[in-house]
């Protein structure tokens, strides 16, 4: 055995990390993606307004974003396995209580708060911390691409599965089934149990020092700004595109096919972005993604609307959909190292969620005010330009830290 092998920190096998991590994000991202399918059965059965349902989902997204840095901090300190297990239990509890809730407050507490907390402990930030620590840097971006592709596949897969569950078993039983399914994260979390030495390799840095360093570093702030734009665009399009197409006189089938194409091409896009990150500068990948989004939206809005045009737009946007996730997180790991990877990813993701919230909210607000989505489309294009400008000067090289002085 070589000296290097003897002294290297013990690591989990890459296959194990990828299989377990991919299955966990398939479940956690997939289950949440179909929640909209419960809108009609729940509001009709409980006699609630759509606003009650929508408010709970909005709270869920904010809770997910706000709790993300704390879940990441705990994962960095105590290992991802424990956080994933707690997240899994919260996920199951949230789904079961969502099925049993008979008041708006209880629904907001379960479908909103509990599920938001659960997602913060079972999604990308926590999994990416393990990948960053356990996978060789030479393959890190690719591995993050695989995990992101798995999450994208989960989103794509679970919508028809949840639709089938609701149709076959009723909305309440469907939630119970999903609650049981979310508990599968617990055994999978064992596969991400990191050897103690690998959790905090190298000289230790305090949480406060890590935060001060990250937020004082221009590239981190710029990456965070870029991710805000990603959240705004993706969620505005995901939520408002069907209404936009219907308003333009296209049939619901066109909207469904467009969403399916986004889901399909998203799987390829995330994988490709991760793979390309091994060979190209990641900031250039991000700049290209945001620039192409601007071009695609501009052509889509200015061209006459036809089903074929919608399908082409949806396919292009699908490729660009979550493809920002692997390069953004890989840059964070590259600059700051892996000790606080999950926590820092959580902060970057919080910005994404604020963008998501504004994308949905402003889409509705400006549509109500002007009777059209035109302004929001052009805001999306302008934000793309800002994201391009923000990502261009990002420095991907590891930050230089002063060595502690010898006594």
């Amino acid at each position: 055995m070589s000296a290097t092998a003897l002294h290297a920190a013990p690591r989990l096998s890459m296959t194990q990390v990828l299989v377990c991590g991919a299955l966990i994000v398939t479940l956690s991202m997939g289950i949440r993606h179909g929640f909209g399918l419960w809108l009609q059965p729940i509001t009709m059965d409980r006699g609630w307004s759509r606003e009650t349902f929508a408010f709970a989902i909005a709270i869920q997204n904010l809770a997910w974003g706000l709790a993300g840095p704390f879940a990441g901090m705990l994962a960095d300190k105590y290992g991802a396995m424990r956080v994933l297990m707690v997240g899994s239990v919260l996920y199951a509890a949230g789904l079961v209580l969502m099925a049993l809730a008979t008041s708006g407050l209880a629904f907001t507490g379960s479908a909103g708060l509990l599920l938001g907390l659960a997602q913060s402990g079972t999604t990308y930030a926590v999994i990416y911390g393990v990948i960053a620590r356990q996978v060789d840097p030479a393959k890190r971006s690719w591995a993050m691409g695989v995990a992101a592709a798995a999450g994208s596949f989960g989103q794509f897969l679970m919508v028809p599965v949840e639709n089938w569950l609701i149709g076959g078993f009723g909305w309440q039983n469907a939630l119970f089934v999903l609650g049981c399914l979310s508990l599968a994260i617990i055994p999978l979390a064992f596969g991400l149990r990191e050897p103690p030495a690998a959790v905090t390799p190298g000289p230790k840095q305090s949480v406060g020092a890590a935060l001060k360093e990250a937020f004082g570093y221009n590239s981190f702030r710029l990456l965070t700004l870029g991710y805000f734009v990603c959240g705004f665009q993706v969620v505005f399009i995901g939520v408002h595109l069907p209404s936009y197409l219907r308003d333009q006189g296209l049939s619901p089938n066109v909207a469904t096919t467009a969403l399916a194409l986004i889901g399909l091409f998203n799987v390829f896009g995330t994988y490709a972005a991760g793979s390309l990150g091994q060979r190209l500068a990641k900031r250039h990948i991000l700049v290209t993604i945001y620039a192409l989004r601007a071009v695609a939206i501009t052509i889509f809005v200015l061209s006459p609307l036809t089903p074929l045009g919608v399908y082409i737009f949806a396919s292009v946007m699908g490729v660009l959909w979550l493809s920002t996730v692997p390069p953004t997180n890989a840059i964070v790991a590259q600059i700051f190292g892996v000790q606080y990877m999950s926590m820092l990813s959580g902060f970057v993701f919080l910005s994404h969620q604020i963008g998501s919230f504004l994308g949905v909210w402003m889409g509705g607000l400006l549509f109500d005010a002007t009777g059209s989505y035109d302004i929001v489309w052009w805001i999306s294009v302008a934000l793309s330009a800002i994201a391009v400008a923000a990502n261009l000067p990002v420095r991907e090289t590891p930050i230089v830290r002063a060595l502690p002085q010898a006594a």
Partner: protein
Amino acid sequence: MGTDLPPSPSRAAAAGHMRRLALWALAATALGLVFAAWLQPDMAFALATRAWSCF
């Protein structure tokens, strides 16, 4: 015995290539099946009447 010999590099490469091809074929089939599920008429109805599914 010839069977005890390690596989030749070209045979090992071919096996690796076949394995990769099989994985891609499996992934393409899975994606195709899910895509077909999205295009079912009841999905169109469900998605057309929902408001927040992607949020």
